[in-house]
């Protein structure tokens, strides 16, 4: 019983350590495609790192490819196209892939919740389960 409390403390300290040292940049590891303005798309990981290996493809509503190409070192993709682009898809070849509706995509409901709260929620769930079973086994 006692050892699991110690493990819970270790886990919470680990969590605080991660949040403290990554507080400026910490976000989940996911790729994000952002149409910045007409002719410019920005691709990054959501820790803020530019996805410089990403390859961007723009599609129209019927799924036909309108334009495609590699982003630059800073994660920007510049294109020159007059037709209406429905969505951009970025793939970095490392298993990350993301799609975005051109300027119209509303953020996922969870993205409105601060990451720290989400991380606390997840940590709280596992500590709670550990505590419940520790008491049962007492």
């Amino acid at each position, binding site marked *: 019983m006692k050892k*699991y409390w110690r*493990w819970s403390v270790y886990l919470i300290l680990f969590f605080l350590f991660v949040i403290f040292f990554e507080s400026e940049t910490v976000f989940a590891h*996911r790729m994000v495609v952002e149409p910045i303005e007409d002719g410019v798309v920005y691709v990054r990981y959501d820790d803020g*790192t530019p996805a410089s290996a990403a390859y961007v493809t723009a599609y129209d509503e019927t799924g036909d490819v309108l334009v495609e190409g590699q982003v630059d070192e800073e994660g920007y993709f510049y294109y020159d196209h007059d037709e209406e682009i429905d969505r951009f898809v970025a793939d970095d070849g490392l298993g990350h892939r993301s799609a975005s509706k051109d300027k119209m995509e509303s953020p996922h409901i969870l993205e409105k919740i601060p990451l720290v709260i989400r991380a606390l929620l997840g940590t709280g769930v596992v500590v709670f*389960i550990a505590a419940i079973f520790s008491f049962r086994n007492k």
Partner: protein
Amino acid sequence: MHIADGVISISVAATTTVGAVGILAYSLKGTKEEEIPKISLLAGAFFVASLINIPIGPTSIHPLLGGFLGLVLGRRAPFAIFIGLILQTLLFQHGGISTFGTNMLLMSIPALFVNYLSSIKKNIPLFLKGFIAGVIAICIAVFLLILLLFLSDQRYAEGTFSVIRLLVLAYFPLAILEGIVTGVAYKYLYTMRPSLFNGAGGTSS
């Protein structure tokens, strides 16, 4: 390391999901109630570790803890990974729904392999054992990721998507880092509480 929706083919996703279900069943079989707290807390560590982002080369990576989970939890490691992945998918949108089984397989197999190696190689210094476990777990995970990408789409083998070039570049530093972290953690925990590495389907060292 989390594969997103749409990256791998449907057949690969379906096959790996079946494999993941099998591994989860193997991991759950015979689980005792007193093992749940340890499994749960290490699932939490796995969940939190994904918040540590390390920008390397053209990508951004995070620790996987496969070697550590394999050493501490043994055959229960996939169970902890399953819980951690659910939380990551729900709360951080890591990976994807269709690739959930693939991601679980990708992270569970290295942990199980480390557990197997640990059970047959016992007379190794503690730090070295942890270091090897951490490095091997990353190497196996990267190998599996390359294999799955190649099976899904041949374009990953060429030009811009030359997976081997990118993955080796990105994950070699992580393998070393995770080896050191796992080595230190394993040595410390084993010295403090050797019983931690017995039971829970784990290996006795």
